[in-house]
């Protein structure tokens, strides 16, 4: 493929990742020799990558499935603006299941004063269902997203 100053971004990234074929690598390096702008871009990319140290993968403790309110531990009311740290890819599966368990446990004495836990909301955002029923079969949580459980019934869609 051709290389020009407008099209090298992907190839610069691939160059850093050592993903280019020998031919493409030679072409990119040849282009870099004559292009200060792309050399600057490459330096910038390398600087960013250099800051990305490898960290251990997130893991969830085995006990997490046995706890109904694991996400409540240590939570405090949100600041005005928060940026979430990295989201371990497996956790939402547990979050959705645990959301159901937590909801099944029914209202608690001071539930109305507690902040709403974020995990079921994240589960909804990430397209996992947030559905559960309370003891005795009373529904207290609706299906996420396709809305058939409630929206059809109420005509509010």
């Amino acid at each position: 493929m051709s290389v020009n100053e407008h099209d090298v971004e992907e190839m610069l990234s691939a160059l850093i990742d050592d993903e280019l074929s020998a031919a493409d690598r030679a072409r990119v390096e040849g282009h870099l020799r004559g292009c200060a702008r792309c050399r600057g871009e490459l330096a910038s990319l390398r600087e960013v990558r250099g800051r990305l140290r490898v960290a251990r993968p997130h893991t969830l403790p085995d006990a997490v499935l046995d706890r109904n309110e694991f996400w409540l531990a240590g939570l405090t009311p949100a600041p005005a603006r928060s940026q979430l740290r990295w989201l371990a890819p497996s956790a939402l599966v547990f979050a959705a299941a645990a959301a159901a368990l937590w909801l099944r446990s029914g209202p608690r004495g001071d539930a109305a004063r507690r902040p709403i836990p974020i995990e079921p909301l994240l589960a909804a955002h990430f397209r996992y269902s947030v559905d559960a029923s309370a003891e005795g079969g009373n529904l207290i949580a609706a299906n996420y997203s396709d809305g058939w459980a409630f929206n059809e019934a109420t005509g509010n869609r």
Partner: protein
Amino acid sequence: MRRPVIVKGGLLALGLLSLAAGPAGAGSRTNLRELVLGAASVPYSGRLKFSHWNGAERVVEEAQVYFDPPGRYLEEFIDASGKTVRLAVSDGIQDQVYALKRGRLAASSLAVSREESADAARRWRLLLSNYRVRVSGSRTAAGNRPSWIVELRPKSDGKPWQTLLVDKETGIILLNRRYLPGTDHSSALSFTTFIPGGRPDPALFQIEARSAPPKTPPQLQPRAAPELVLDGAFPPRLAAGFVLESQSGFQFPGSSWVRHARYTDGLAFLSVFQTDRPVAVPHGGARGGAPLSTATDALSLLDFTTTLQFTRSGRHYLIVGDTSPALLASLARSIPN
């Protein structure tokens, strides 16, 4: 030399520009829309790698994937020791995710991922109005698979950039890289091996036949909810080209309904939650999130998450997305009192 194909929002017709100069395999894409949004139409298997960077943290996962068109897939997520820790399976209608605990099915969650694929034409129009899409060349991916380089660049600041490598023969996205310029947030989904053809054994998809059924949430028992009023709860449009895609609600003990609106700009997704109490966003960071339905919607790479919480007219709002905090603030301002 092949010149880049550039599509701008006002030139929708260019979306149908032919890429006929490329090799014409049985599953090859014939226009840009199919190249970006086209569903996989050939069976395949392979090994996927998910990489997520957030500042100094890097999380990598691998999954063995089997796909049987039109929509059946299995993804076996594997940890560093080679142990399967999670299964995502779909019969083409419902997506189910299973967590494994000591090799046994431990929990499951239904995942819904079909809505935007139901109207690909609308999504494409929206995507073109918010992103510049171009085929900038070709290179190899997943070993030596010739692939198109497709770049999606937002027209608004604060949105992630995305680059795809699309297999020329099958149209499968072999690499999907999404990153927010000016930050350390990045994620990538890539095939390290990709083997098209050969239908997978149907028994692979019978997950619950492998082990005792997992604990599952109780079955949903729908009932009318007159207190859930969604009409007018959320504006049809937000700033930066986001439009309302769907809305629904759920409830917590002792709480009124949590109303949830999902917005999209054709590529990115964000959620707006309306609640009667603040949401507990942990200082130490919440965890969760996963690429979902990579076989059926590989374009959507939901990943790093930014939140913004605010109060308006006595109601609490939480916006969740993967845009910059500055853009989230702009979106918040576009929610009327």
